[in-house]
């Protein structure tokens, strides 16, 4: 089975390479985003030294790290599922001796690895030359960050699987998927660090899985979370993975029963 998933990851890698223009435009889009937030925060800070406990410099670094992390955990698996359901392609997936959702997860990983290797890593090196980024000092720090990033990827993909599976019941849910994308970007701390939210909102967000997708991994990267507290974050991520597993399994079982293959 492991071989199969390695092959799926490889195939996704090749497919990403086949669309080189998408790759280049992806780099430009991320560049624009990071640049825009850089200047936006520069304007917000103005002459002030620090806001919400972060200096302008820390904020710049935070933005860079947050977007680079996103390059890895982000994927459009839900839209792919939606498209396969709408076009009836899901039929082809169901005649294969594998678990559809695991395959989607593997494909998402292929995509994430591609963007990490060809985009986030060179991007980070470039950013390191311009910005005063404090890279994790030891191999242990790197390892912990990567672990939390992988868990962030799993949680984000689980959320995508959930919204994707809903297509089996709703048939058209682009609106919901678009809303989900904005909610994840906002509540994961990509657009605004969690510490900038009002206290009641922070409390509320503590009950949601979004902040472990980006905010905590990015803080681990920048060293804002002490190594002694890291275990707590990792456990929290792990708990979310376990919690999200349940509705996915239940919904998937119902989806299989409800499936209507579109178009003959």
């Amino acid at each position, binding site marked *: 089975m492991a071989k199969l998933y390695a*092959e799926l990851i490889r195939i996704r890698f090749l*497919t990403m390479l086949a669309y080189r223009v998408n790759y280049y435009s992806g780099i430009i889009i991320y560049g624009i985003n990071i640049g825009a937030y850089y200047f936006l925060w520069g304007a917000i800070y103005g002459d002030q030294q620090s806001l919400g406990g972060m200096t302008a410099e820390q904020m710049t670094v935070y933005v860079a790290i947050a977007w680079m992390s996103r390059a890895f955990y982000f994927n459009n698996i839900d839209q792919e599922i939606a498209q396969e359901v709408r076009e009836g392609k899901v*039929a082809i997936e*169901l*005649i294969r*001796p*594998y678990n559809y959702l695991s395959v989607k997860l593997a494909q998402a990983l292929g995509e994430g690895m591609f963007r990490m290797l060809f985009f986030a890593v060179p991007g980070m090196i470039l950013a390191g030359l311009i910005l005063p980024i404090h890279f994790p000092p030891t191999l242990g720090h790197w390892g912990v960050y990567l672990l939390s990033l992988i868990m962030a990827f799993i949680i984000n993909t689980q959320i995508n699987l959930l919204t994707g599976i809903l297509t089996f019941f709703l048939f058209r849910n682009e609106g919901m998927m678009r809303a989900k994308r904005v909610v994840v970007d906002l509540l994961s701390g990509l657009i605004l660090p969690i510490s900038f939210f009002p206290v009641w909102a922070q409390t509320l967000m503590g009950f949601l899985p979004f902040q472990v997708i980006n905010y905590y991994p990015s803080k681990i990267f920048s060293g804002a979370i002490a190594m002694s507290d890291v275990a707590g974050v990792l456990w929290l991520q792990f708990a979310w993975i376990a919690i999200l597993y349940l509705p996915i399994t239940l919904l998937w079982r119902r989806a299989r029963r409800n499936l209507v*293959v579109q178009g003959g």
Partner: protein
Amino acid sequence: MIKVSQLQKVFRIHQARSGLAGAFRDLFNRQYKTVKAVDGVSFQVEEGEFFALIGENGAGKSTTIKMMTGILTPTDGEITINGFVPYKQREDYVKSIGVVFGQRSQLWWDLSPTESFRLLQRVYKVEGEDGKRWLDRLVEELDIGGFIHQPVRKLSLGQRMRCEIAASLIHKPKLLFLDEPTVGLDVLVKQKIREFLRNLNESERTTILLTTHDVSDIEALCKRVIVMDQGKLIFDGMLSDLKEKWGNGTEIAFQFKQRIPVAELRGLLGEYPCELFAENEYAVRVKLQRSREMLPLVLSSVMASYEVSDVKVMESSTEDIVRNIYSVDSEVAVNG
């Protein structure tokens, strides 16, 4: 090998109300209509059979195939294939079947068929020497070696369809489902695919189930035919029996050496149930209803009594039969 009993599939279809007010009401309260796509279908298939499932669009063929391949869950009834219940043991079951959907590609659009084959070999765990040899044989017999290194999107439909068939057989399944495999293909490609399938059925004893609109497919390949209409099974048996039941009967055209009045011939064939039509003074057409028993009798008695210069036996084609079935049904639909 395949056992289907009292199979049923009910779909709930959303009925959209008309107009803006209707659309607004739909937001809060949706109306559904239930449709029985497959209604109490039962049949059995033995290993090594080559059989066709035919019927009009919307007769329930595709739904039946999708339940048999484990894609859809039946509302009621039972299916057992190769010892599995498809929708319950899907992942194990699908290893023993191959499926080709004529309308839907299973190859990766942007990659070459070779890449797809490789992935499928991984999926079905047939990467060893045997798997390679089998794939080489498929490539050779389907004659696809010349273009399997090009991206699928650059292939013609005929080239792609042959690759699809190779892809569906990569794990040497015992059972192959073909859902309208020859739609839109030219005669030569059809010919090639049919030859390949016949060969596969004979040499590997692969059981093949075909749904098709193309009557020539059935005539070229299948002995057994299942006809579905409005979700119900209306015929299950040999193609020849189908011809008996729904065909226009057989026509024999005699060309005589001397003038034969029709009445005289009628007298000769008096006891046989048949219709006679005089073409001209020398030629008579005889239309038989139950052709299998009648044909030899009529032929021998006419040939024994008269000098005949030419005889033509015209069987009704499957195409006529299908048209007959459909026209009868549409009459029923009008009356009902």
